Structures are given as C-alpha cells and as structure tokens.
C-alpha cells in the first residue's frame, strides 16, 4: 500500500480543510468513499478490468494537490482562445479541478434565455451549495455504492467541477463546451467531478476538451455522472489533445430512462497515458445508446477505452464502434462488456472494434465481452486487428501518390465512419481536419488552441 499511503495520509490530515472548501452534498459520501479507497487501493493489473493498463503505478509520482483551492490566475478571456474554432458554443472552463467562474464576460442573449427557462450551469460546488436538494438527488447515484479505486479516490478528493441541469422539455440548441485545462508551475494532480442532469424531454450536446498548458507532469482523475431522463437526448463528444506528460483518467457514468437517446464519442488524438471508462445503464425501455471512439497513438502513448453497457430492461438498443491506429510502440486497449440482464428481451446490442498496427512494436488489446441472460435478443461483436492494406497502398502509389500521402489517406478513410457519427457539423469538420493533421504529423499539441502553443 506504499503508493496509496501518502494519499491516505493526506486525506487523514487535511480532510477537514478539504471539506471546508467543498459543498456539504459532496462531503456527505466523502468519508465512506475514502474508506472504500483504503480498502481497495488503486486498481492493479490483477483486476480483469485493468489487465492491460497499469493505473496504480501512475500515482507513484509526486503530484501536488490543490486542496486549499488556491485560485487560478488565468482569466477566462485568455482561455477563450482555446475554443474549437468555428463552433458556436456555450463555453466553460475547469482549470485543474476548479470551475473557473466567469464574471468578466457578459452573458449572451441565448444564455440568458436558457437560464430564464431554468437551465443551470457552472460550478458544481456552488450549485451544490445553492441547490442542495437537487444535487443530492443525483450526486453519486450513477456511480453507485460500489466504486472502483479511481472513482472512490475521486469521490474522496473532488471538491468541484462542472454542473449542468436542463429542466423538463428544454432544448439547449448550441453545444455546451467544457474545456479541462491543466495549468500549474509544478507537477499537479486534479480530481474534478461533473454532474449533468437532463430531465424528461430535455436535450443537450456536451463537448469536452482536455488540454495542457505546461509541459509538466499532470494527472487527471475526472468522474462525470450523467442522468438522461425519459425521452431526453444527450450527446457527448470528448477530444483529448494533450501531450506525453499527461496521465488522464476519465470515468463516465450514464443512466438512461425510457426512450432516451445518448451518443458518446471520444477522440484521443494526442495523449500520454489515458484510460477512459464508460458505464451506461439502460434503465428504461426503448432507450438507445451509441458509443464510439477513435484513438491515434504513437511513440509510447497508451490509450485504454473500457466500456460497460448494461441492458437492465427489455427493448433497448446499443451500438459500439471503436477504431485505433497505433504507431511506433504505442498501445491501444479496448474492452467492451455488454450485459443483457435476465428478462431484458428484445435487446439489440452490436459492438465493433477495428484496429491497425503500423509497426510490429505497436499493440492493440481488444476484448469484446457479451454476457447475455435473456433468450430473445440480437447481439453481435466483431474485433479485427491488422496492418494497413498493402494492395490499396500499392494501387495508390501506382497512381503517383507518395507512400506517406497514401498511408495518410487510408488512415483517414479508416477513421471516417467514427467521424461521420459526430452530429455537430462544425465539430465533425474540425475533427476531420485535426485527424488529418495528426496523421501528417503536423499536430504537435493542441492546434487551434493558441494558449497551448509553445
């Protein structure tokens, strides 16, 4: 327990102070989560769910934590440049693990209109203080009582994050964009917590970008809970463009009610060491979910997408599509478990994972898992891992296209069906461009993000 011990000591020594800088609702389950963490420790590779991703040793390095909530010196207007160009969005920032309150910028007209309709957005801590009943009804409920080491650690240490509440039948047309920025003058860890609630018939699109501003060692352990009410529609697009010194853990828990519709699309273009865990609970009939993702790895990058889809009731529909291109000695991991519970008849669940290894040293571990306890279901999975199509490559070269360009076109084509599933046109075009730049090696770090340029 030596890796865990220093964190255990920090909590025991500073938990009063930690709590005093957070909200009562978030503090309620804190000690219990801490006890769970003490019992389990960080996930090790002995656990099936973490077999190919050594999470625990990532915590061995000495990271600073900002438990006293020392404010960030950045102003939102400096960060606004980080916006994905051409995307007209409602923009918010979490710097390290604090929501950046934006009082310097005036509210736009449509933001005001949405707030008049009852939409709430901003700091989770502030909203938990202002609306304790609302937040308490949801906080920690998607995660559940039994947490893995990353989630219990987050629940013990998280003090703030982003909050979004969309009341019944309200449609938020423009995407809500959250940029998670890491910025510090020493190695730093961030545990932020996001809570997103869509009531019956509500609709929202959420974009999340992960950026780093400094070439320091950063570790993020972010947990997001999403509640999608009856017939509500939620889409989430996550884009990671960080660098080799970034360790990024993201756990997403989604609960879907009857007739709800969810799309989750994760693009990892540049990273260091990443583990995304997604768990979707289909709790109401006729709910639909589409999980997709792409990962492009090179050098020593490590990208793990582990997904769980639980068909808890009949008549739900889930699809998964993940694609990886790994170069040099990078590693991709995909694990997708689909659980069809007893009685969840007429379930349809399809999963596909396709991968290209560009070198002999690059690896993809893909692990489809279907667990079916009902007898009237349609489920399938397919996983392929191979090399680039040599005959197509030669065909293109024989037309005068250079080997490099031909490979680029083939890789871009390979990723295209994941990109096609992005419904926000400006984002889709932007991602396509970024992927192309990534394959051309022109995407050093965050492009289109001025503050990230060295």
């Amino acid at each position: 327990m030596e890796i865990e011990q220093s964190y255990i000591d920090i909590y025991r020594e500073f938990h009063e102070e930690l709590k005093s800088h957070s909200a009562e609702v978030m503090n309620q389950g804190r000690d219990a989560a801490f006890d769970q963490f003490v019992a389990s420790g960080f996930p090790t590779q002995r656990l099936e769910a973490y077999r190919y991703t050594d999470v625990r040793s990532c915590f061995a390095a000495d990271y600073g934590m900002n438990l006293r909530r020392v404010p960030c010196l950045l102003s939102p207007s400096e960060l606004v440049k980080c916006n994905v160009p051409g995307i007209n969005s409602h923009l918010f920032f979490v710097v390290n693990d604090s929501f950046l309150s934006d009082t310097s910028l005036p509210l736009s007209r449509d933001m005001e209109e949405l707030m008049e309709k009852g939409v709430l957005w901003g700091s989770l801590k502030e909203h938990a203080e202002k609306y304790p009943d609302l937040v308490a009804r949801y906080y920690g409920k998607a995660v559940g009582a039994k947490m893995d080491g990353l989630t219990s650690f987050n629940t013990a240490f998280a003090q703030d994050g982003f909050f979004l509440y969309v009341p019944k039948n309200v449609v938020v047309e423009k995407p809500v964009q959250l940029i998670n920025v890491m910025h510090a003058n020493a190695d730093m860890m961030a545990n932020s917590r996001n809570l997103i609630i869509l009531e019956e018939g509500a609709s929202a699109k959420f974009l999340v970008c992960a950026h780093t501003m400094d070439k320091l060692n950063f570790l993020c352990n972010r947990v997001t809970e999403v509640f999608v009410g009856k017939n509500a529609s939620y889409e989430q697009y996550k884009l990671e463009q960080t660098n080799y010194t970034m360790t990024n853990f993201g756990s997403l828990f989604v609960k879907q009610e009857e007739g709800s519709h969810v799309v989750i699309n994760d693009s990892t273009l540049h990273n260091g060491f990443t583990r995304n865990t997604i768990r979707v609970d289909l709790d109401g009939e006729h709910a639909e979910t589409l999980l997709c993702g792409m990962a492009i790895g090179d050098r020593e990058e490590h990208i793990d997408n582990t997904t769980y889809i639980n068909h808890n009731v009949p008549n739900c529909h889930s699809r998964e599509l993940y694609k990886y291109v790994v170069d040099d000695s990078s590693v991709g991991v995909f694990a997708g478990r689909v659980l069809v519970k007893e009685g969840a008849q007429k379930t349809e669940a399809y999963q596909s994972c396709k991968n290209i290894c560009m070198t002999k040293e690059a690896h993809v571990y893909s692990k489809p898992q279907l667990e079916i306890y009902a007898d009237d279901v349609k489920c399938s999975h397919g996983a392929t891992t191979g090399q680039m199509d040599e005959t197509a490559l030669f065909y293109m070269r024989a037309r005068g296209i250079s080997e490099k360009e031909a490979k680029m076109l083939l890789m871009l084509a390979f990723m295209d069906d994941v990109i096609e599933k992005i419904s926000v046109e400006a984002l889709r075009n932007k991602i396509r461009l970024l992927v192309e730049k990534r394959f051309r090696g022109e995407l050093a770090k965050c492009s289109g993000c001025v503050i990230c340029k060295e």
Partner: protein
Amino acid sequence: MLEIKNLHANINGKEILKGINLTVKPGEVHAIMGPNGSGKSTLSSVLAGNPAYVVTEGEVTFNGKNLLELSPEDRSREGLFLSFQYPVEIPGVSMVNFMRTAVNEHRKYKGLEPMSASDFLKLMREKKELVELDNKLANRSVNEGFSGGEKKRNEIFQMAMLEPRLSILDETDSGLDIDALRIVASGVNKLKSNDNASIVITHYQRLLDYIVPDFVHVLYKGRIVKSAGRELALELEEKGYDWIKKELGE
C-alpha cells in the same frame, strides 16, 4: 522509350520471369499474349514496381532512366501507367480526392502548381465522358461497389487523367461484355498518339480487334518465345498455344 534487358524476377523465392527482352518505341502498341501462368501479370507488376516481386537480374530503362531504381510513385510520375487486372477497392477514399491527389502529385513532380478545384472538376468531367463513366461513380469511394465493367472503365478514366507516356493494360478485357469492351477500347484509342505507347496484355485476340497492335509477343514460361506482327494474334486464336509449345519442342 522502354527497354527491358534480360529481366528476371521472383515472388516468394519462385522465379517467374526468366530473362525478358523487349523494346517499346513511342507510338507503338505491343500486345503480350500467353497461356495462364506464363508471367504476363508478373511482368506488368514488376514494371509498375509492386514490392511483392524481387528483381534478381537484368535492367529496365524508361525514358533513359533506370526504372528499377524508382519507387512506384515516381514510375507513375515519370509517365508509366498500369491498368490493374483487379482494381483495388478503397472504402472511405473518394474518387475525387484520390484523383486530385494523384494529379497534383504528378504536377508537383513536374514543378507545376496544384490545379485549382474548378479546373480539376472540369478536367474530370471531360475525361469521364471518354469512357462514359457515370457521374455518380466519381462521388463514391474508389472502386467500392463498382461492377467489373465500371472498375475497368475507371482504370481507363484514370489513365486519361494522368496522360501517361507508356500504359500497360493488364487483362483490361477480362470480365467485360462486348459493349464495355468497345467503350474501353475506344477510350484507349482516343488517348493514343505518336508520343505515347501501350503494352496490351491479354489472353484473347478479341481485344486486339479493337486495339490494333503493331507487335505481338508470346510469353511462355517467363520468356518471350515468339514475336511478330498482328497476324500472330490471329494465328494463335486459330491454333492455340499448343502450336507454340510444339515449335519449342515440348
């Protein structure tokens, strides 16, 4: 234009070409015929630079350059074109994007600026008519879901776009019905000039009714065993390859 001397080539350690000699001059059309497994497609693959084949002996000069030292893309940019026997499907890469990239890489090689989008589309429209290629096909992925005939017409369309000095048509007639054959052949004939040349590889004399060769060569067991004028094709059609085998004393 093209001079092949004593060319030997292997695939997976098995020798297929065992000393090919062939000279092609501008304005000429050469037909290469021969039974299955004689090395016809290997010859075209080796000339185009398919990395699956290893040249063990001999030399090939193309426009005064050592062809065997050039990468497949540089061979294409130098003006060599291979019409594939089995054109490759490339899902996700649109015909327009594919062709624009190819044309602009050729232009770059010649020191020319990339073509503007409108000029390019104009050129595509013009060349598509040559082989009566459906407009819809241009917007689809390269060869994906194309019928056999459409794939072959698409090869000739690409040839028209790239204006090669030497084109090698590898069994362009296979899998074509008579109408498609006529369209493909008339496309090839329209592209013919005094400055360019073609090598037509075929099993059957049928294609040679439309694309009239100046020379006919018979390839057998990795060597050219007989060369003559176009009358040789007719003779082969009549007598079959056994006649050649007998002549060789087999």
